[in-house]
């Protein structure tokens, strides 16, 4: 059953009680929350995802997002993210309840799912090949990811690139795309199809909102993709759209440094990382106009020998 088939009132009831079991990519979650904003966020963004009765299904991660105490519901209201009774973060203002859930899920996955090499990068796919977009914050990675998936690319993941250690393939995790500050109006203008939820203000990353993942990407969330490119985007005002090859060795070093669990995997992390780099073309990419950026990516995908979907 899909989440959108659940009535809002019954979803809220389940969230406040035993929790809602939800599958996203390879992971199953049990989410509990009494907060209307969390229910609202899930209804708006996770409609296409599978839900089950949480009393019957095994869940990988049991998470809860709630106010820490009675007092904090009224006086400068706050929220806590709990990972099965553990509180890995300091509380945040109530306004940030929904993004805190998303950040908490990122934490849960990157701290535990060591069957993958997990790189901090967006990743999208076309014609069976994946483009990995690693980049420091502020480089326009999420904006570009959003622009591409609104233009026919498949969303594999916005923040966490999961590389299966056994197969070397990229495992999709098509959760909502997080957008910050100016990218929010920019993506709204870019595509009338984009649904972006209510923004949370004054977070550690500024204003944050999430874009609903495309239906088709969610439908194909169990279909892995072969790595095709590693592309470092950099948004820079008034620049032309340029794609410049970059050194594979340097790219590998950057990926290793930006992987959440590279050092935890020991020698195998090196093996998985080098196999990835051997398969992928590496580029630096500069852009100022999103439509031109998408056109450049399309040219890249069309020029590549069509890969069979893995």
């Amino acid at each position, binding site marked *: 059953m899909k989440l959108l088939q659940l009535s809002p009132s019954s979803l809220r009831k389940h969230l406040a009680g035993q929790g809602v079991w939800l599958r996203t990519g390879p992971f*199953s979650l049990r989410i509990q929350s009494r907060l209307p904003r969390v229910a609202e966020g899930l209804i708006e963004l996770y409609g296409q995802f599978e839900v089950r009765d949480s*009393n*019957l*299904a*095994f*869940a*990988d991660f*049991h998470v809860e997002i709630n106010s820490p105490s009675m007092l904090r519901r009224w006086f400068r209201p706050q929220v806590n993210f709990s990972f*099965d*009774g*553990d509180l890995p973060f*300091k509380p945040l203002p109530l306004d940030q309840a929904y993004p805190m859930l998303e950040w908490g899920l990122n934490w849960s996955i990157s701290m*535990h*799912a*060591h*069957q993958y090499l997990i790189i901090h990068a967006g990743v999208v796919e076309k014609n069976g090949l994946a483009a990995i977009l690693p980049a420091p914050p502020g480089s326009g990675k999420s904006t570009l990811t959003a622009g591409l998936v609104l233009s026919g690319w498949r969303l594999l993941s916005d923040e966490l690139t999961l590389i299966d250690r056994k197969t070397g393939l990229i495992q999709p995790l098509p959760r909502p795309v997080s957008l910050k500050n100016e990218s929010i109006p920019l993506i709204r203008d870019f595509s009338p199809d984009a649904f972006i939820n209510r923004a949370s203000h004054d977070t550690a990353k500024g204003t944050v909102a999430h874009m609903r993942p495309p239906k088709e990407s969610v439908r194909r969330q169990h279909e892995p993709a072969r790595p095709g490119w590693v592309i470092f985007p950099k948004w820079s005002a008034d620049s032309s759209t340029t794609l410049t090859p970059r050194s594979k060795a340097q790219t590998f070093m950057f990926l290793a440094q930006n992987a959440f669990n590279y*050092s*935890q*995997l*020991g020698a*195998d992390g090196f093996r998985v990382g080098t196999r990835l780099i051997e398969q992928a073309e590496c580029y630096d990419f500069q852009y100022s106009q999103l439509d031109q950026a998408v056109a450049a990516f399309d040219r890249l995908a069309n020029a590549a020998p069509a890969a069979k979907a893995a």
Partner: protein
Amino acid sequence: MSPIGKTIPGDLVSRVFRNPYAVSSFSLMDWDKLVRQARRSGLLARLRTVLVQHRQLDVVPAEARWHFDAAATLADKQQIAVRWEIGKIAEALSDLTFPLIVLKGGAYVVAGLPSATGRLFNDIDILVPRELLGPVEAALMLAGWHPGGLSDYDQRYYRRWMHEIPPMQHVKRATVIDVHHAILPDTARYHPDSVKLRSRAVPIDDTKKVHVLAPEDMVLHSATHLFHDGELPHGLRDLTDIDLLFRHFATIPGFWNRLQARAEELDLSRPLFHALRYVQHFLDTPIPEDFAHAMAHASPNRTTQSLLDAVFLRALAPDHISCADAYTPLARKAAFIRAHWLRMPPHLLFPHLFHKAFFQARYDEQTT
């Protein structure tokens, strides 16, 4: 031994340790609980080892399997990292002429003991002569380890009353060392002589740079640490350490006699008695009957014992909502206060708890 009372229902982790074949009848919801309890107790990787040893790994349903595998990946990597880190510590302290003694988890790893398997680490504990604390701290600081962000009160508390200096964290690798000069504070009820402990430490290889405690002392230290430490987040894991030590050392001729004598000598018969009682209860550890009989004299009186049972049956179970009863929070608090009570006389304890209750929260808020 007096009967131990009822087990807290729902503790699947110790149940699987007692009988690994029990998993064959587990429902998917049992696996859900087992994974969660084991993760909280830091025992996912060790459980996997037990399942492998009993050929039960294939019984694990696909949904649950990766949790065990991923924890084992982490544990394997930590073993290598701990070895390497201990090498670095030995290097940093090589100019000081005394044997470096590694305690607890680090010792199990360098000594290649079964209690190292599937173990996860938070820090590395070492034991050094008290009179060399200053030079040791200086040498470690030169090599990149620095005292962590403690309040002035905590710094003073550690240095004045504790048997260790504040934890030191490496600036680059973020690894943490606990430097001990004894296994209990000077103020504690029992006074094991650190010089005696150090005198029988054994080198782990020909270079004689790194030592571990003698088998009996290793058991006594683990027991003392478990039953005299304030918090028990990993109580069950520490109990399985002791279980594995017992099973391993039991094969050394004369071990049990030496253990009993050494416990008397170091004034640690009571914590050893507790360890025996609870490893048998939680983990079915085989203990020779005459030894158990000989240790009975170290038991507390019956009232105290039943009170301690009520506390430890709860506090040593996995710290997870699925195996807690109405008294669990109280039991954990009681274990915490008891450990402090045993470590400090009242005229020190009460001001300390008072400070913790009323000033710590303010410090925590200031530093966030």
